């Protein structure tokens, strides 16, 4: 029995405030029970690759969306992106970078590594909620991925 069976969105965010805001936004869009929050890049990779504390997770049930913060302890978002996009079996997982960084070089590097979307988190809460909601709607409902 996989307790992550219902999880469809993996949120990698080291800042608990941002995570809470994001989760609140998902909750408003009724996605809350489908979101799993990890606190750094290492944990994100362990979840995706079913290693470490996620070793018993079902590898046949990858997340349908990976929301990555860039700046995280241990393994940052860029590294996570690079690892996932470099492995054939994870390549198809849509990855959306959601970060405070508006730096051009981060945007360029992310797209070079094959990111599916790059979102700058708005400071304004209303805009933030709207953005997160839009992301969830788009990638979970609108977008189609290979089966």
């Amino acid at each position: 029995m996989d307790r992550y069976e219902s999880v469809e969105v993996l949120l990698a965010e080291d800042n608990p405030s941002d995570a809470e805001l994001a989760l609140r936004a998902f909750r408003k869009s009724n996605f809350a029970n489908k979101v799993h929050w990890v606190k750094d890049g290492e944990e994100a990779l362990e979840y995706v690759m079913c290693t470490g504390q996620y070793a018993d997770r079902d590898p046949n049930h990858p997340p349908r969306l990976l929301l990555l913060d860039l700046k995280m302890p241990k393994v940052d978002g860029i590294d996570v992106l690079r690892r996932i996009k470099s492995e054939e079996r994870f390549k198809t997982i849509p990855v959306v970078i959601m970060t405070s960084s508006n730096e051009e070089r981060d945007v360029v590097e992310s797209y070079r590594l094959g990111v599916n979307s790059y979102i700058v988190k708005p400071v304004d809460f209303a805009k933030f909620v709207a953005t997160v909601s839009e992301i969830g709607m788009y990638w979970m409902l609108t977008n189609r991925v290979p089966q």
Partner: protein
Amino acid sequence: MNTWSDRTVVWLSRLTAGRQLGAREVTLGFVSAMVLLLVIAVMSYRSLDDFIGANARVDRTREEISDLEDILSQLKDAETGQRGFLITADETFLEPYKASLVRIPELLDMVRTHAADNGEQQVRLSDLEELIAQRMQSLERGIRMKRSNAPVRDIRPSLDEGKTLMDRSRALVAAIISDEEARLARRAEAVGRNAIRAKEVIVIGNAAALLVIAIIFVLLRGEVARRRRAQHAAQRNAEEVSELYNNAPCAYHSVGPDGLLLRVNDTWLSWFGYTREEVVGKLHHQDVMTPESAARLVALQRDPGSPMKRLGHVQDVEYEYVRKDGTRFMASINAAIVRNSGGDRIISRSTLFDITGRKRAEQLLRESNLFLDSVIENIPDMIFVKDAADLRFVRFNRAGEELLGYPRGQLIGCNDYDFFPTGEAEAFTARDREVLANGVVVDIPEESVMTRDKGARLLHTKKLPIVDETGRPRYLLGISEDITERKRAEAEERKLTEELRRRTAQLEVTNRELESFSYSVSHDLRSPLRAIDGFSRMLEEDYAERIDAEGKRMLGVVRENAAQMAQLIDDLLAFSRLGQQPVSAAPVDMDLLVRDALAGLFPGKDPAVLGVEFGPLPPVSGDRNLLRQVWVNLVGNAIKYSSRRETPRVRITGRNYQTAAGRECEYCVEDNGVGFDMKYHHKLFGVFQRLHSSGDFPGTGVGLAIVQRVVTRHNGRVWAVGRLNEGASFYFSLPATRENDNGQV
């Protein structure tokens, strides 16, 4: 004949070849030839004389014989006549008899005279005379008998006697004649022998004389030819000497005791431009000199102690001469006094050498040397020359003196050991030997030398051999540059460069830190703001019924400040990024850009409604995005600060003009807003500097700082003119593009 004589001459010439013919030999030859001829003449004369004598004697003998025969005939005639008389007694018959009486003694005398030298004949003649006398007496007796009529018988004996006498006489005469004839024959034989000897003598003597004369002739002929040749040679010599005198490459003149020029050669005349007639006997030596030289010559002539007076000659005295046409030339003169046997000075002879060319060459050489000396002297590096043989200094320039601290008087003639520590001197000398041995330039990039006044100095020295025409090194040339200061400066520079490198590295580190800082700012500072805003909202939403109006207002202030802070961060990041990103350059249409900026600021609004008007703006070359930001900020400010006017007005103008640095485009944004006090002008463009509170006009104080940074990075200038409450004008100027110069876009 010719051939023969020629051969003889040739032969004689061979015989006498190489013999010099002196007067004594000629005399001896002629004397011997004359003696020979004399001997021949004497002998000839004597031989002829003998011959003539012999002939005379033959004649005499013949006369004698004839006379003797005549005597016999007279006797017969006398006998015949007597007989006739005896027969006839006719006296006429006695005529022959009477004639013979006279004639016979005459004949006998003649015979006797002829045979005077012959004693034997004289005896015989005496006998004959006796016989004739007896016969004549016999005849006389007969005659006397007849006359006396003596009978015939008486006469007869006399007749017989007569006959005997006659026969005897005949025999005697025959003997005399025979003897004479024998003598004649003997004499003729002697004469013949003499004649043969004379002939031999004449022939041999003549031949000898002829030979002697021939030899003398040949010798004389040779001598004459030799003399003629010698004469020709002497003549040619004289001509050559004359030619040499006249056309010598130097001028000659002779001066008489009166000081006048006696004789000059053609060269002299051609040099001076006079004719001989104008010079000889008319000009003094000093007359063809410059006054200065003439004075010198005259003074010398008067000086009793002058070399001319003491030694009789002078050499290499230099005078300046004046040609007939007035031009001048320098000549060196050698002169000698010629004295007669009495020791009196008769003339002086002088040789002049034109030394104008030499003087000019000397002058050129002097100038050239002076020039080279001056070059060497003024070269700021030490130049020294050493003799290759002993490495002693022979030349030093001023820089060398100053460097080493010794005057060249002390340096020249000395070597390295006299001035430098032994170790240094040994090193220098070893290098010198190396240069001279290998014949190559040696470059010593750095060597230390101990100087007298300046301590140890570092030199960059080049040493090279100076070779003579045979390729053997004669001198060693050294060029030393004092690189002490340069080395010090280089060390200083290295230190500075090192420092700069260190600081640059530091700066790079700082920059990286700054970058990482701004990165953190952009990322990390926004998260708390988002949390503040988000949680304020969550508070409002979740606890709406428990928070009163004042609480909600306060939450609003919290969220407003968070938003303000977020804006500050964005502006600050934008400003800091300006310093890093490169500025591109492309033609920019400023009219379009201003419209674009306005559309961005106030989407969908007509500029006229906003009170913005703008004329044609000159295009420039620059970074479109950055320049757009300039317009956004300036126009945004103008609209913002004039927004409280009843009729806000913003005017945008542009022009281009020529400055000393080139064409520039100047743009101006003018508004009728609140303006500013010019005393705060300097704060306008500072980061976070504001002249109004954000309560009056919102803003972060970064906009004009960005404007200034963009314009500066385009090599332009920005400035502002304003009055409080009367509006402000913001100007910026940018270098014009070439297209602008032509008035085209």
